[in-house]
Structures are given as structure tokens and as C-alpha cells.
């Protein structure tokens, strides 16, 4: 199953990536945001730390969601710190 991952702000900066395709072949069809986070966390300590910061925001297809939201093929999943616009 392939999805697009986007990273913004300090996450983008720390992890050195802003957008990439990500496949979760080993997982069954009911993949949650939490499962994607776990899979990405295995990329290394900086990923582990960045994706487990307490205020991390998850947006699935441009909508803020909790980690139990279910991800489908072709979705866009973004991770970022709390927003500071305005």
C-alpha cells in the first residue's frame, strides 16, 4: 500500500525530507496513522524522536486526525508541530 508522507516546519528541517512516497507492504488493509508512525520510526533515532514528540499533529488528506485514523492507498499523511500562523 503506497501513501504520500509530508513533513513541515521543524520536522521537515530535522529529518531533511519534505515529501516522499511510502509503502507498507507488510501491513494488512486496516493501517492506522499510529502504524505508519511506528514504521517510519524504524528509520532511525531522529525519526523515532521527531514522530513521538508530545504535540505532534497528524493531518490525513488535509484534515487533522487522531492516531487511530485509518490510512488508505493514495492518501496524503502529513506530520508537523502545532501551527503558528496569523
Amino acid at each position: 500500500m503506497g501513501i504520500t508522507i509530508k513533513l513541515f516546519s521543524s520536522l521537515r528541517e530535522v529529518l531533511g525530507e519534505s515529501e516522499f512516497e511510502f509503502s507498507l507492504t507488510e501491513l494488512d488493509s486496516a493501517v492506522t496513522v499510529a502504524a505508519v508512525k511506528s514504521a517510519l520510526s524504524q528509520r532511525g533515532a531522529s525519526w523515532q524522536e521527531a514522530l513521538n514528540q508530545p504535540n505532534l499533529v497528524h493531518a490525513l488528506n488535509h484534515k487533522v486526525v487522531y492516531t487511530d485514523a485509518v490510512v488508505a492507498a493514495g492518501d496524503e499523511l502529513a506530520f508537523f508541530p502545532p501551527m503558528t500562523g496569523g
Partner: protein
Amino acid sequence: MTVSIQREPIDVASEYAQLVGPQPDAAVATFTGYVRDHSDAHAVSQLELEHYPEMAQKVLMALGERAADQFGLSRWRIVHRYGLLDVAETIVWVGAVAEHRGEAISASELMMDTLKTDAPFWKREQGPDGHVWVASKAVDQHRRARWRSEEKA
């Protein structure tokens, strides 16, 4: 009504004129935010605004529509900058038009309080020690929460 997410400075006079049109409704409230030359802790020489374009567009449209619905606005507009901004440049402009002043003023306040915490923009300040990401403020979360009880499920 409409949203603009733009790199260019906001032309407040032009935005205002377009918002009210030739036959203005009775009450027009606006808010403009500018880049400060300081944060709580240090001097600021420039501000960089990163954003998530597609989501920002959707969030700001939904926010304007919610304000219009809740306060019976006849017209509204939200303009937000991104990119590298100098001190004293515009960051954000909102305008709300209604029959009565309370509705126009409250709608402008709702739009500002909600976009601060809900619209995917991130500020990075250029200060004496280099770039610093601006942290989310407790006061902004608190102001945002005031509107939550009135939201629809």
C-alpha cells in the same frame, strides 16, 4: 467569499474596497497582523512563514464559511502571507461584513483566533542567534478554545 494565500504584501486598502463593494452592508470589521520587531525573548529582523498550501486553503475556506454561518455575514475575506517577511510587513488580513456590529466584530475575532491554531502555517524568526521556530502559545490555545463549544459536531 474567498481566501488568498499569497507571497505578495497585502494591499489593505484594495482588500477593503473589494470586500465592501459599492453598496456596503451596515457593519464592517477588519483585522490586520504585522511582523513585530521583537518576540517575547529577543529582537526579530525577519520572519519566515512556511505553509502547507492545499490544507491551508481548505482550512481557511472552512473557517470563513463557519464564521459566515455563525454570524450571518454577507461577505468575508481572509488573506494570509507566506515566504520571507520583513519587520512591519503585513502577515494576515481578515474582513467581515454583517448587518450589525457585534456580528462583524465577533466574526473577525473568531477567524483570527481559529486560524492562529488551525491553519497550517509555521513561523520562523530570524533573531540574533539565527533562526528560531516560533512555539505555539498557550494564550492562543485558550482563545481558540472559547469558540469550541459553539462548533457543530
